[in-house]
């Protein structure tokens, strides 16, 4: 308990509080007046409004497109389903930078649609919305579809026998059971799109800007810390609200449902309607999920003299179109892998300890049904662990720079700075993956081991560890993929001579020239392959309900 708490206090709360404080303080004086100035600034109002509505629109669009997919994955049995489930999840762990460049390659200037029909969407809001759907399709399919697959179809059959029509049975029986899962998924999507950074940064151009992008601009371009601080606080408040709602719906989801083995509920589709639904889902996946990635790969090979590996070959030398790139872009791959491994280790230790602490037996509800104060505090901590997902990564990154640069914690020059920041984002995934499994371990198994003479430490090693090993692997994979793709914080704190893959991609995209663009596509492809590889490995180890993601 103490370790994760200290970790969060030191590497999350302290930098964030420090940077917000620096923004809002003038000497020793709090300048709360800044709030009024910032909030009434028409530009800021515009950004706020855009952030909210694009998040809402993205969420709605994602639900609209992904819910039929969730049904298809839950109830239909078709060849290649396992593989497709893995493919659908790939975008979720892809770095935002890669997603941005993939959509740029599809919809942008000189992109595929531009070549074919002269259509460009990169300056329209549609590019952002579609990229968000691409990104979050898996969230809905996994959270809703996972539960849908386990709902006992006999419940609906019982309603049918009692005289309900097909639709009425679905509306009265299935929908109420699914509603909390749909709400939880929607809130997660809203949260991710509300704080969207890389996608909007690349696709939004000068026109569109979310809060997170605006924080970055104010901090990095204009050095206007007070405005950035106020924006951070606004985002923080919004995220807190969303998380509270999420926690509430998740608790509702825990209500007793009759769950069955998902493998037993899936059938081969029959009838024209069901086949149409399945093919429709496959089409959506092909167009929306696979096409952008395919185009990305295609562009990375489309050299100036026809297809070839020109861009890949050029990644190995530092001598690019201009010489400001201090190292060979390919070195970024090794940096990323090393950082990712370290961040995964940290996230596993911190997240694992936090999850273990959250499942300590004395924190469970007593027989009287009352929850002791300590437990309530710990449950609060549970929700706090999700915060790094929602707090501006830019703020965290900049906070790291200004707080961890003097004794006793002078980490500015330390190699560990980057993995520490990346682990922050990995921890929520570790906790979310481990918690359900740890909670499902029957407490009496531990008691049985204790009665047979196992000390508490042996109990953990002999009973808990073997049962959660699989979840631990999955958590590790998520943490690894997430830290590979982390951009918002890393872009601040990565040393110029040690860029990670996403940082290198962003730098290349930020420059003119065909070679830079091609190299960016090539690097993105490499990043995508590494992430997808990690995920596909996991999919083999995954059980159907080992986590919420």
């Amino acid at each position: 308990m103490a370790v994760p708490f200290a970790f969060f206090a030191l590497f999350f709360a302290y930098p964030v509080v420090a940077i917000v404080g620096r923004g809002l303080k003038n000497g020793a004086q709090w300048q709360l007046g800044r709030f009024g100035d910032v909030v009434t600034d028409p530009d800021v109002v515009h950004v706020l409004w855009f952030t909210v509505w694009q998040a809402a629109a993205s969420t709605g669009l994602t639900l609209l497109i992904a819910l039929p997919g969730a049904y298809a994955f839950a109830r239909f049995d078709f060849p290649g389903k396992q593989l497709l489930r893995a493919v659908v999840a790939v975008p979720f762990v892809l770095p935002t930078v890669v997603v941005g460049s993939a959509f740029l390659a599809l919809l942008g200037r000189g992109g595929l649609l531009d070549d074919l029909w002269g259509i460009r969407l990169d300056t329209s809001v549609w590019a952002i919305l579609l990229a968000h759907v691409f990104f979050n399709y898996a969230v809905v399919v996994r959270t809703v579809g996972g539960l849908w697959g386990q709902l006992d179809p006999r419940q609906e059959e019982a309603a049918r026998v009692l005289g309900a029509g097909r639709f009425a049975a679905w509306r009265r029986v299935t929908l109420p059971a699914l509603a909390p899962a749909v709400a939880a998924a929607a809130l997660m999507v809203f949260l991710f799109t509300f704080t969207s950074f890389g996608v909007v940064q690349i696709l939004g151009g000068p026109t569109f800007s979310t809060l997170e992008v605006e924080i970055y601009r104010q901090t990095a371009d204009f050095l206007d810390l007070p405005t950035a601080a106020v924006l951070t606080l606004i985002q923080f408040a919004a995220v807190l609200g969303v998380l509270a709602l999420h926690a509430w719906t998740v608790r509702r989801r825990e209500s007793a449902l009759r769950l069955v083995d998902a493998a037993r509920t899936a059938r081969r589709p029959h009838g024209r309607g069901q086949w149409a639904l399945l093919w429709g889902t496959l089409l959506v996946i092909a167009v929306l999920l696979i096409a952008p990635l395919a185009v990305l790969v295609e562009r990375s090979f489309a050299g100036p003299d026809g297809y070839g590996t020109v861009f890949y070959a050029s990644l190995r030398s530092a001598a690019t179109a201009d010489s400001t790139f201090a190292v060979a872009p390919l070195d970024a791959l090794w940096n990323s892998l090393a950082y990712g491994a370290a961040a995964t280790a940290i996230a596993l230790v911190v997240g694992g300890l936090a999850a273990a602490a959250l499942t300590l037996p004395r924190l469970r509800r007593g027989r009287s049904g009352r929850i002791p104060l300590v437990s309530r505090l710990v449950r609060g901590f549970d929700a706090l662990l999700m915060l790094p997902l929602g707090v501006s990564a830019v703020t965290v990154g900049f906070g790291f720079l200004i707080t961890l640069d003097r004794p006793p914690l002078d980490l500015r020059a330390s190699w560990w700075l980057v993995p520490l920041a990346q682990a922050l984002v990995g921890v929520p995934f570790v906790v979310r993956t481990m918690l359900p499994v740890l909670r499902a371990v029957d407490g009496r198994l531990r008691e049985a081991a204790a009665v047979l003479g196992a000390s508490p430490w042996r109990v953990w090693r002999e009973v808990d560890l073997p049962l959660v090993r699989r979840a631990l692997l999955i958590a590790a994979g998520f943490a690894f993929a997430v830290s590979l793709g982390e951009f918002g914080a890393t872009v601040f704190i990565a040393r110029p001579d040690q860029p990670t893959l996403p940082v290198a991609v962003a730098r290349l995209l930020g420059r003119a020239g065909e070679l830079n663009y091609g190299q960016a596509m090539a690097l993105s492809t490499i990043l995508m392959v590494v992430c997808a590889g990690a995920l596909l490995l996991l999919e083999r180890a995954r059980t159907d309900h080992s986590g919420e993601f």
Partner: protein
Amino acid sequence: MTARHGTTAPRPPQLLRLGGVTVRFGASGRPALDAVDLDVAAHEIVCVLGPSGSGKSTLLRVVAGLQQADAGQVLLEGRNQAGVPTHRRGVGLMFQDHQLFPQRDVAGNVAFGLRMRGSSRTHQERTVAGLLDLVGLPGAQRRAVASLSGGEQQRVALARALAPSPRLLMLDEPLGQLDRGLRERLVVELRRLFHELGTTVLAVTHDQGEAFALADRVVVMQDGRIAQTGTPLEVWQRPATEFVARFLGFDNVVEATVQGEAAATPWGKVPVPDGTPDGPCRLLVRPAGVRLTSAAEGLPATVAARTFRGTHVALLLQPAGGPQVEAACALRDAPETGERVGIAFAAPDVVVLDAADG
């Protein structure tokens, strides 16, 4: 296995001694265990019997150290166990639903306790093989736990609990989940086994048949207190209170006022055993003590229901006045439903219950 009853120092008279053990869940409300005193002698088989919620399982958990007592002491071989963690108490507990470790095979489960004590691999293998023979599953070492039937899991759980030779073996509803035939066979096997091994056993169950078949001594619990202690025969013949009587399935309990050799009840005069003090009391007539006579002679009654019980027929009789009377009668003599009969009571099957009871 049997070598552990050493003949060293004189052993304390009681292996387990509970003194005033009290457990409360939540700040207020009825305690789960209310000042319970209980002794278990070495090699004795004691069975705690009671309805669900009477605190039986809590009792075992306190002895195992899985539940902290709010007051009172637990002594094992004369040593106070306060502050001794579960894994150092040297007791065994067989859980109600077995709690076999799903990721280990049968041998891995049975050897677990030995591994925790660091015994050698050869010793483990020998003990496991011996125990599996003993519980009737020879050669099952490599089988997966999930592939076992309920009865087999039961045997593996027993072997696992016995393997480290605990000084006290505790069983929580040991046969609860098994079907009737298997249960009756196993209970006999268990008793023979425990006597052979000289194991000291503290078991809890809600099934009176199981308790009476297994135990040297039965302890009946009610609402966290001990209602009666005695040999199975004593408890069966002389239930101490109305609660115990009703829990054992006896429903012929009425208000009575004793005067001399008989008591006045709503059923009329009922003979009482010699030496019963005069005054008001509660009276139990066991069904075997209800005799059927012709309608003209005894207490007139109508047969309200009859249930076939295999060896006899249970009759529910409705007298003209007072509550219904349960009677047992031989198959041949059983009257039809609705028939009019007479009732007479036999003194040896009449029990005077303690008045101090709800």
